[in-house]
């Protein structure tokens, strides 16, 4: 089976990462922003696994597992905070959440 070259994986991960960044910048709903962030994190995962495959080294894969675990915890916390904000405001548009400035 012909192997997919490392560069293609990296290019894909870079594209995913940039899509994530753009998504974060363009969306105003915190949940969508979180999804964009997940995309960025998983771009990192993809790069890790590609490198691990390339080096035949386990540590990259371990890192990826760890990122997935942390991502779950992080999503739980972030959603809880969003819910907390939503309960008071009946609205979760990040542009409306700007009491503090200057």
């Amino acid at each position, binding site marked *: 089976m012909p192997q997919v070259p490392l560069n293609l994986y990296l290019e894909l991960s870079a594209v995913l990462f940039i899509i994530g*960044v753009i998504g*974060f*910048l363009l969306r*105003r709903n915190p949940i969508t922003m979180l999804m964009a962030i997940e995309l960025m994190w998983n771009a990192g995962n993809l790069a890790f696994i590609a490198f691990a495959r390339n080096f035949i080294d386990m540590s990259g894969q371990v890192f990826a597992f760890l990122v997935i675990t942390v991502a779950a915890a992080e999503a739980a916390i972030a959603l809880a905070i969003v819910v907390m904000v939503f309960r008071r405001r009946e609205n979760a548009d*990040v*542009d409306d*959440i*700007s*009491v*503090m*400035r*200057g």
Partner: protein
Amino acid sequence: MADFFLGAVPLILLFPLVGAATIALFGPYVQRSASAFIGCLSIGLSFLLTVGTSFVIFPLSPAQQTLYTHSKFVGYWAHLPPDLIIGFRLLIDPLSLLWMLIITGVGLLIHVYSVSYMASDKNYRTFFAYMNLFVFTMLLLVMADNFLWLLVGWGGVGLASYLLIGFYYDRPVAVLAARKALIMNVIGDVGIMLAMFLMYAHVGSVSYQNVFGHVATIGTSALTWIGVWLLLGAVAKSAQLPLQTWLPDAMEGPTPVSALIHAATMVTAGVYLIARAHPIYDNAPAAAELVAVVGGVTALFAATIGCVQYDIKRVLAYSTMSQIGYMMLAVGAGAFAAGAFHFMTHAFFKALLFMSAGIVIHALGGEQDIRKMGGLATRLPFAYWTFLVGAVAIAGIFPFAGFFSKDAIIDAVLKLHHPYLFVFTVVAAGLTAFYMFRLVFLTFLTGAYRGDHEVHAETERTMTVPVAILAVLSLIGGWIVLPHHDELSFLLRSTFADAPFPQSMADFNGWLSFGVLLIALAGIAFAWVAYQWRPQIAAALHRSLGGVHALLTNAYYFDTIYHWLFEWPVLALAQWLRDAFEVDAVDALPALALRAGAYFGSLSNRWETGYLRRYGLTFVVGAALLLFIYLFVAHGATAGAAP
């Protein structure tokens, strides 16, 4: 027991500091009497330890008498030159012990005296905190084992003096006097600093041991300069010519302060400095000569002024100046033990005089003008008799303390061949007797009471007991040096062993002593004639010598000269600079800078819009820029590294 006292030496220094801090921190939460108690207790403990240490040190053989505590904090402040190591350790030797005994002993008496003297003052606690601070810094000054820590104590006593002269801070005169004293003293501090710089340049150290151990290698010219700069410090602190003008003004402070700081202890720091640095002066005869001349001239100069002043405390201030002149003359001439001896007896009788005068002032509700006194001997007998003891002692009448110490100095000056200075001292001795008894007659005798205040009789035990103790000391204090029994020189022998003039003060020159005694008696007799027997003689003299009288009343116009020489040009320049630059240029610059800063700040704040997406955008753009710069820099580095 010996180990206990030697181990407790740092506590001597520590007690007054702890006392000052305790009163300052907790004073407002305790009773007034408690803060006074703490103030007296801390000094009392220091005194007890000092006495104990003296009993340990003095019997030792000369080689063992110099003792250093363990060095603490010999660290570095990274930016000192590595070879300049300044540790903090204390030096105990007979010379510093003598000063410590006087500082804590007389200090204790004056603290006790202040308990009732200051009782009605609203800043009672502050007073005791300042006094304890003074004792701490003064002890630091004499216990330091190098010039840097000496300077720390030196500046510290200057600060305490400043605070206490300006103690009645609602009186503008007092504030001005405090400021004047501080400025004069800082001139002296600069002198000591310059001396230290020279020491460091030539020896690489400022510790007594290193500097005095290397005097032979320094070279006479540099050594003379060190001596001169040290003298500048001594002159400022001890109110000698030409930096003497602050001391009379310092009498604006409370009377116990005048007794402790401006008579007994602080103003003699200059004498201590010269005596401590005697290896320098032994090897720099020109500097030593200058010290002697300054002292001798001041002794006469101040005595003449003292003859015409009407403020009881100012007379005493000029007398202090004159007596310190004697001490400076002694240490300048090389008679170190005699200088130290006069310091000791002077501390007794001058503190006594100030405190007796304080009883009078207290009884008269703050009146200090002797023209408004008179006839107080019957109303204030205790003050009269103690003041009389002090006056007799300072006039140098046998067998009171002043006779012995003054005689030792005059004798030494004659032996060391300073003919002019010898004449000065003899004349000043006569004048001293005259102005002191002028004071006695005008205050306590001479007709009826002339003032308009009611006289409150003194009864406070805390005021009379210390005064009585000092009166006794003024009588017997000189007996430490009796013919064929020179205890003091013996005690100080280890400190001054290497001084070239091994004077034994037990060597009385009978005729000289008798002559000086006669001159003093003549001064007293003249005072009696002019102020008690025939007051019209004084009035006639006053009329016929109007010019001289004006000159003396204004203290030779030194203040006026300094005003036109230093103060006026500076103030005029400052006024001109203010008119010409300050408003338009100097004030405008900070304002401009502030406006520019606020503008930058507002840029930074306005970017902080509160909108999350703005933050995200900034983050991402910042990251992109950073990466771009990084690639640029890293590419440059690798391209540069490539051949």
